[in-house]
């Protein structure tokens, strides 16, 4: 490190301890970091490249981001508050995550900055060992907190984005099929967790409205087991569909699931069920295609 311009004279020592307070030390530190901003930032950017971090970004991009990270870092040191830094970290993460930047890279570069700054402190105060110790004592906790804040912000943002993407994928893979006019089929396969169940219901209800469906066939042949929560959810789906004027036929009800439904108090005689999907579709077509049948026969339906 080349010799730098002297910092402003240090504040008078604390009358009680005879030393500068932590606040005063941090102020001195911040001043040093600001004065040497250009070279420290460059040093840091060089080390980032050497450590092969942020390879998904160009050098110009790294430098641009490095500048704002540096400034936010120093500001956090100065103010001692971390909300702004956290907000910035989330913001930054939102930008770089789609570029493929990973957690270890972000943690890596923040630690690198911490080290670059620490080394510059060594260089500046190496002749005053006591002072150096005290400044490091002031710097270390703050620097670690900063690293932590940035890392946590990044991870939170990453998790948020992943959830968002998962949601989008689920939306795209909506299994509600329109096979005939006014007839929708919802085949449910596999393990259904409460969140997926809720999402399926919402998709189905929206589809009923969009397609003006009058009959819906929900096929649960592919569902292995259903706990009472999800079974309850199925019943709710049937009822909500009815509120939108659609009749629901449930097909593929296994004896086990039928048992679960009975256990939670569902009156199976009130739920239209048919053995298999094909049978369900035929029943649905019959319901839809039907124009005039004698009234007495109608009262014996369902």
């Amino acid at each position, binding site marked *: 490190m080349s010799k730098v311009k002297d910092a402003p004279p240090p504040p008078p020592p604390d009358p009680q301890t005879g030393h500068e307070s932590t606040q005063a030390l941090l102020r001195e530190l911040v001043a040093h970091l600001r004065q040497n901003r250009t070279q420290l930032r460059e040093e840091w950017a060089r080390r980032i490249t050497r450590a092969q971090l942020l390879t998904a970004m160009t050098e110009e991009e790294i430098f641009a981001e490095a500048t704002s990270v540096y400034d936010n870092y120093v500001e956090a040191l100065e103010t001692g508050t971390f909300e702004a830094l956290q907000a910035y970290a989330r913001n930054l993460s939102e930008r770089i995550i789609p570029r493929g930047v990973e957690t270890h890279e972000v943690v890596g570069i923040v630690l690198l900055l911490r080290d670059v700054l620490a080394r510059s402190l060594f260089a500046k105060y190496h002749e005053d060992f006591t002072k150096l110790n005290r400044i490091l004592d002031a710097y270390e906790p703050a620097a670690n907190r900063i690293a932590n804040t940035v890392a946590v912000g990044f991870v939170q943002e990453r998790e948020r984005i992943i959830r968002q993407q998962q949601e989008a994928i689920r939306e795209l893979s909506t299994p509600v099929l329109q096979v005939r006019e006014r007839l929708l089929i919802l085949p449910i396969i596999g393990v259904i967790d409460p969140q997926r169940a809720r999402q399926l*219901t*919402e998709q189905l*209800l*929206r589809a*009923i*409205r969009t397609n*003006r469906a*009058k*009959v819906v066939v929900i096929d649960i042949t592919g569902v292995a087991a259903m706990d009472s929560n999800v079974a309850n959810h199925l019943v*709710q*789906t049937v*009822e*909500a*569909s*009815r*509120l*939108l*004027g*659609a*009749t629901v036929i449930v097909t593929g009800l296994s004896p086990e699931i039928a048992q679960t439904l009975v256990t939670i108090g569902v009156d199976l005689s*009130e739920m*239209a069920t048919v053995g298999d999907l094909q049978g369900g579709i035929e029943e649905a077509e019959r*319901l839809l295609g*039907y*124009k*005039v*049948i*004698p*009234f007495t*026969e*109608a009262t014996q*339906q*369902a």
Partner: protein
Amino acid sequence: MEVPILKQGHYLIASIQSALSDADLSQLREKLIERVGKFRARGVIVDVTALDVMDSFAVRTLRDIAHMARLRGSETVIVGIQPEVAFAMVQLGLTLKGVATALDLEEGLEFLNQQGQGHGRLDRG
């Protein structure tokens, strides 16, 4: 908030325009029942498309309307329940059991027509 009630042939159509307080709902119920008797309506359609919330009072009132209308020889259909509202209703355990529902006004009219002609119909629970 007055709810406009239109007469269309033998049917009465009540179109709710905005959020209703409990007092508004009660008033609607009174008006509808009165008119069902007065015009000897054969069907009542209550369009709740504009309601963004259906709570227990609203559901109770609609059931009362359907019940009282039936006593006077008229069938009631509730139309226009929004998907989110339907979902919230079933989660809260509010059901319109015993009351016919349809997607919208057009479907509601078709339902009443089929009813009136003594035809069989899709089971409305």
